[in-house]
């Protein structure tokens, strides 16, 4: 038994280091003075961070990515929550078919969704890119919402709702006064996970952005095609700070295990 534990401890510890070190290197390179990324760095500067905010693509991209992520997550919650309520509480035929349909965006490769939406919405229907982006990201978020809220509803005792009906509340007011306050954590978790997923997405945005409509991750991707300087490191660090802040918030209000 002892050798087994030792072996797995060594591997486990090494894996942790391998997970952390690349991100540390990125953080360190963001402070280097040389115009090409190098490690170890020479000198120390914050210039690349300043440079990030001088790149209109990055600044606009950050704004657009945030707006799209918020709207798409919100839309997914708005559409997804009633669906989950019906699927977990009503007695309907072919429940698992419906379940599969609402989880189907997760079955199809994201890049295929992006491509299909580009053809259908942008080319055929001539919809504005912004609307198409929202649609794509809404589809991306919906399965997360369905999965997390379903888990929340399953944990919530159905007779508590019935008790509210019995004392005089109709189903709609019971939903808002009793169900929502009790699945709040799942709703928040679904929103956070949707936001992160949408914010980080590349394959769908790839097809649905344009000259006036930049998403942050695709902007970085484009920037990397022509440049290789620590600006990318700096913007990466900013993204890591955003991730860390979201994690701290999630831990404070939900406990991180709600997110996995």
């Amino acid at each position, binding site marked *: 038994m002892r050798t087994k534990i030792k072996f797995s401890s060594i591997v486990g510890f090494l894996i942790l280091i391998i997970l952390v070190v690349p991100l540390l290197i990125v953080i360190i390179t963001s402070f280097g003075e040389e115009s090409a990324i190098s490690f170890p760095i020479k000198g120390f500067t914050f210039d690349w961070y300043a440079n990030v905010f001088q790149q209109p693509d990055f600044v606009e991209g950050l704004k657009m990515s945030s707006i799209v992520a918020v709207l798409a997550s919100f839309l997914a919650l708005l559409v997804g929550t009633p669906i989950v309520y019906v699927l977990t509480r009503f007695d309907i035929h072919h429940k698992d078919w419906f379940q599969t349909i609402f989880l189907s965006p997760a079955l199809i490769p994201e890049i295929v969704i992006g491509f299909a939406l580009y053809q259908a919405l942008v080319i055929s229907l001539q919809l504005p890119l912004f609307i198409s982006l929202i649609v794509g990201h809404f589809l991306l978020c919906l399965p997360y919402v369905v999965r997390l809220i379903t888990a929340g509803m399953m944990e919530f*005792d159905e*007779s*508590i709702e*019935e*008790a*509210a*009906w*019995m*004392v*005089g*509340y*109709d*189903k709609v007011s019971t939903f808002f006064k*009793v169900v929502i*306050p*009790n699945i709040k954590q799942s709703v928040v978790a679904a929103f956070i996970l949707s936001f992160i997923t949408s914010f980080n997405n590349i394959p769908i945005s790839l097809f649905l952005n344009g000259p006036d409509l930049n998403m942050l991750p695709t902007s970085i991707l484009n920037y990397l095609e022509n440049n290789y300087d620590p600006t990318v490191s700096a913007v990466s660090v900013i993204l890591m700070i955003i991730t860390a802040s979201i994690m701290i918030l999630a831990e404070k209000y939900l406990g991180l295990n709600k997110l996995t």
Partner: protein
Amino acid sequence: MANIEISDLSMSYQKGKQILDQLSLSIKDGELLSILGPSGCGKTTMLRLISGLIPIQKGTIKVSGKDISKVPVYKRNFGMVFQSYALFPHMTIFQNITFGLKRRKLDKKTIEQKALNILDITGLSNLKDRMPHELSGGQQQRVSLARALAINPNVLLLDEPLSNLDAKLRIEMREEIHRLQQKLNMTTIFVTHDQEECFAISDRVALMNQGQIEQLDTPQNIYKNPRTEFVARFIGYENFIPKTWAEDQQWQFHKEIMGNLLTIRPENIGIGAGENTLLGKVVSKNFLGNYYQYIVDTELGILKVNTTKDQSETNAEITLNFPESSLIELEDK
């Protein structure tokens, strides 16, 4: 207050399984009626139909003469206590109790007055600012009862309210329910699978089996005169004697009903000579505190005999007697 008239209530699920079969029942004003039966007999379905939690397929339910079949659950003004307590987890005890009152057009002061009154008579006053998860099971069930009574319901419905409590609390809670029910003179329907708790507090008992009422009577009458084999077995009769056999033996018993079986309680079978005798051999003897139980192998199979006196030993050949007055005729179903 209210009386309830249920007629021809039927219910089946989509797969064609009949849950309730043309069931009729009337409950008097202020009565505590129990619905007793094994799981799957339809008792919970029946309660849920009365409460309005599930829609009526066939039949009618009248409360004080008014048909409520089409009245939605939230307008029925019934109180219900759930097996799982079902308290609102995000509200304090006080908020749990006033939640229903707030829906009614009452001013703040009246609501508070009513809530405090209910808290007082259920003995919960000192817990009113706690959250449900801070309470013990017994306390939670008390709150559940208080919440149901707070809206001043026409009818109180109890769905196995004691089954999640331990033995001691169960007795305490059932007394509490009985006390409040008497005090408020509340028409009450109590669903349970436990014969003892049901007999202890009910005015009448409806014993259900396979979607039908097998017997509707006072606890005493059901105990003394079970109508069918099912009822007899459910409330603890274990000895059954075919009528034709008894006739061949020229036993004396009342012949009033058509049916094939006689039954007798173990404590009513005598050991030694007497009327209606039968020979048997003692298979085993068990001392059970205030009585002895003899397992006796007879021509009729194994019979159980309870006596207060130690009268015989294992393997002994004994004579059993079956007094005419204790032999109960059972109807065929």
